[in-house]
């Protein structure tokens, strides 16, 4: 960051124009002022009431964050390039982080961005988790104790939005940002500046959604993360903070996904054929395809709500010819694939952890990769299973039920392949492995309740009840969050250069596992018994299980404190991590922890599969000029070794990176 440091002798004007927080601050204010002037001016010209909240806030919410992104420096290079100024020579002097302050600046190093993503997502996990604790406090007893119904509706809406858009989706992008280029032997992502901008859109979305609680008139958006029209189109001002926040989070996702796709296709080290890629790379490849295809639909659905609200376009106003159910089709066309966006990268993590910790090759590697592709394709054909009782065209229900149930097939393949990988391995039950095993059992439960919900007659009874709340938490917490914790512990030594405390890690796992089941298990029964979801109050007969659930939730909250303590204290003072503490085979472990600024002194040569544990003489890749030592036929699956693709992969990799 030497080039960006603010020198003491710098003039006031230059200090203000330097990319960073000072420029971001005044530009944000200027952007807001411009938006205010624009809207107020136009309204004054029309002779309408000038200080109308909704349009003013809407335009400010669009303009101020964009100005912030310009101020912090997200567009500097492209800006100079566009106006023809000399661009800074791309010497990568701003790569890497030398102090904690570097994590608060625009940085194009994928490892810095990976940490930025992960830590930001963990921060919002604590915010979203805190909101959930208030929800459980209110639900501990029937009646109203802690918050009024309006605040309550805001709490679970913001909780869900943060957990989905600011935690699960971006934390996978963060972990993959850090390890994926290393795994494929690349020096960085394909588009480092786009990568930096993708990250900075994220805190904008998170702050916007959280800040909606400060809206004086009506508080936070309170129509659920689903924001069904016409409830959302008529909701108070807070709704705009979701509608527009989703645009920023969605843009961030799409840009990152494009980056991953291009990186994976063009920047693999020589010899890293598709069939030699670690499954995390496969998982992020399929996820990125899902994101690029599906995310525009959620952005679109919220954009339609936005124009309905501010410009009265009446897409969803039946009195003006609008169609209410079309909102749900557009929304779920993203939001069902979003479940896979929140799950497939976790599948990748679990494959890495289980293979390494069981010391065995992944059982049925190719079928594992193909099942990801099957989920990708099938994932786009099931969205209306969220709408079995919505009043949509009734004929559509049965085909959507069949496709939904068929997704159990590729998912089952993955579960059974992991189990077969465990079989006759040498299992090391450290924290990442515990979370991986916990994931397999809990996600199986979540998948099974998903099959029940797919059966239309059962869904007719359980739709929009606590059964669904239980299901999604078994999928997104017992599933996604468990894989996230597995991944964080697994790559913690690589990312921080320190070892975490194993005993605290195991304590965190067992507290999470118990707290999770006590919190969400009873919700199945509550739903079957007849408790609707999204209610601030419920009938007395549901009191007992709700109390159990709330106690579980507070216990789960304490588990997270153990995690945070371990995370922070180990980073500050844990023992130094060796390059490869797990004796893993994949490339990210063949360099130091943390890796050198440009990852590899020399682009590695991949000569075999990534998980050849127990295969005598097997080698995944050769590093640092050992090329003449490449063993002939080292590839476990018996492919011709890689030198044939050498020039191709190498040239592409460097070319894409240097642009």
């Amino acid at each position, binding site marked *: 960051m030497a080039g960006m440091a603010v020198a003491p002798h710098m003039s006031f004007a230059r200090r203000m124009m330097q990319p960073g927080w000072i420029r971001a601050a005044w530009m944000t204010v200027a952007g807001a002022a411009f938006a205010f002037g624009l809207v107020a001016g136009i309204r004054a010209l029309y002779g309408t009431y000038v200080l109308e909240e909704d349009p003013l806030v809407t335009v400010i919410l669009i303009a101020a964050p964009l100005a912030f992104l310009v101020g912090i420096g997200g567009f500097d290079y492209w800006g100079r390039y566009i106006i023809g100024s000399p661009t800074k020579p791309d010497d990568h002097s701003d790569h890497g982080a030398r102090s904690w302050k570097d994590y608060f600046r625009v940085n194009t190093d994928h490892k810095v961005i990976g940490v930025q993503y992960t830590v930001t997502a963990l921060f919002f996990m604590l915010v979203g988790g805190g909101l959930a604790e208030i929800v459980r406090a209110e639900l501990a007893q*029937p*009646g109203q104790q802690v918050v009024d*119904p*309006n605040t309550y*509706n805001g709490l679970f809406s913001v909780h869900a939005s943060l957990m989905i858009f600011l935690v699960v989706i971006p934390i996978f992008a963060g972990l993959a940002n850090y390890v994926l280029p290393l795994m494929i032997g690349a020096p960085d992502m394909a588009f480092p500046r786009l990568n930096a901008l993708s990250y900075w859109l994220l805190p904008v979305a998170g702050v916007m959604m959280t800040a909606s609680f400060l809206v004086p008139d009506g508080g936070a958006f309170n129509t659920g993360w689903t924001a069904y029209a*016409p*409830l959302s189109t*008529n909701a108070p001002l807070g709704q705009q903070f979701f509608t527009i926040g989703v645009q920023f989070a969605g843009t961030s996702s799409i840009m990152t996904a494009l980056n991953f796709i291009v990186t994976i296709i063009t920047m693999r080290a020589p010899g890293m054929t598709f069939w030699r890629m670690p499954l995390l790379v496969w998982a992020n490849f399929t996820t990125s395809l899902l994101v690029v295809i599906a995310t525009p639909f959620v952005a679109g659905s919220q954009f339609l709500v936005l124009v309905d609200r501010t410009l009265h376009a009446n897409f969803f106003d*039946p009195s003006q010819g609008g169609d209410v159910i079309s909102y749900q089709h557009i929304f779920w066309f993203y939001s069902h694939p979003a479940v896979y966006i929140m799950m497939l990268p976790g599948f990748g993590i679990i494959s890495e952890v289980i293979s390494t910790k*069981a010391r*065995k*090759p992944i*059982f*049925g590697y*190719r*079928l594992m990769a193909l099942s990801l592709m099957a989920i990708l394709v099938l994932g786009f054909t099931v969205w209306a299973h969220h709408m079995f*009782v*919505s*009043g949509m065209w009734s004929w559509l229900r049965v085909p959507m039920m*069949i496709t939904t*149930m*068929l997704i*159990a*097939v590729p998912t*089952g*393949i993955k*579960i059974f392949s992991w*189990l*077969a990988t465990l*079989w006759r*391995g*040498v*299992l090391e*039950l450290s924290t990442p492995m515990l979370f991986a*095993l916990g994931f397999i*059992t809990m996600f*199986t*439960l979540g998948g*099974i309740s998903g099959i*029940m919900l797919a*059966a*239309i*007659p*059962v869904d*007719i*009874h359980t739709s*929009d009840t606590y059964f669904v709340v239980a299901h999604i938490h078994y999928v997104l917490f017992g599933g996604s969050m468990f894989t996230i914790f597995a991944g964080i512990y697994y790559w913690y030594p690589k990312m921080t250069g320190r070892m975490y405390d194993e005993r605290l890690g195991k304590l965190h796992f067992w507290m999470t596992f118990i707290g999770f089941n006590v919190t969400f298990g009873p919700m199945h029964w509550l739903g079957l*018994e*007849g408790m*609707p*979801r*999204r*209610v601030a*109050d419920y009938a*007395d007969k549901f009191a007992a299980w709700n109390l159990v659930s709330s106690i579980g939730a507070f216990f789960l909250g304490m588990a997270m404190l153990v995690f945070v303590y371990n995370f922070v204290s180990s980073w500050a003072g844990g023992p130094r991590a060796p390059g490869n503490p797990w004796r893993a085979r994949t490339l990210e472990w063949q360099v130091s922890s943390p890796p050198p600024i440009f990852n590899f002194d020399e682009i590695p040569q991949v000569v075999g599969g990534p998980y*050849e*544990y*127990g*295969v005598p003489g097997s080698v995944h890749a050769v590093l640092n000029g050992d090329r003449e030592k490449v063993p002939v036929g080292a590839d476990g*699956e018996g492919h011709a070794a890689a030198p044939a693709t050498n020039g191709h992969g190498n040239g592409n990799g460097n070319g894409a990176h240097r642009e």
Partner: protein
Amino acid sequence: MRHLRNPYVQVGLWTFAITLVVGTVVWALPWEPEQASTQAGPIDTLYDVLALISAFIFALVCSILITAVIHFRKRSPDDLRDGDPLHGNTRLEIVWTAIPAILMVGAAVYSGLVLADIEESKAGTRTVEVTAEQFAWTFEYADGEQFRSGELHLVKDTPYHFKLNAKDVIHSFWVPQFRLKKDAVPGIETDVRVTPKRLGRYTLACTELCGLGHSTMRATVIVEDQAAFNRWAQRQRSGRGPQAGGVVSQQGGQGAGAQEQQEQVAP
């Protein structure tokens, strides 16, 4: 006894034990409320069948995992062995692709049959127009002399066809004891068929988030015999019972929930 040490035998024993426990919990214990409609029976049977198959699959997954952890655990930190380098087994992979696929097709066909069964239109069906608004339900009886009410009275063993409308936002019509649910959507008319078969008082709850009063948007449902229904209907027509629509139905709609709340809040 030596067989018991065999990991494959242990997987079998664990699977049996866990299926027994989980199966008992999900199937034998009565989690669902009483069956008050003819549709509830087939739906519950479908649930039970899926739950038992699920219990077995969950037990199988857990058993393999537990057995692997017990048998193939790393014994000491110095144990640097690798596992057996098994890359796959095509026959096994075909088996665990094909069996779930067959199971799923079976589940889909069975679900489809149940769906056709519960949605079948029957002779002698009566129609009730249901209007949902923030945060009340109004029921309009169309046969004979028309009248409206905030309470839903139904005659036992009579097939009903509810036509659902919403005035403002989406609401959802659900009586857990009937097991049936359908959204009421502004701009279109949706419908749901129910044949009540058990006398009693039930609560209709809104299950689609509809705003501040969502949690208290409930209505009382009374299933009675024809004579009791006639007496009630007579009172409604002559205007002595709780009046229809607007303000009164608002009270009717919130009555059940509001009363319960007051009881709970009272110190």
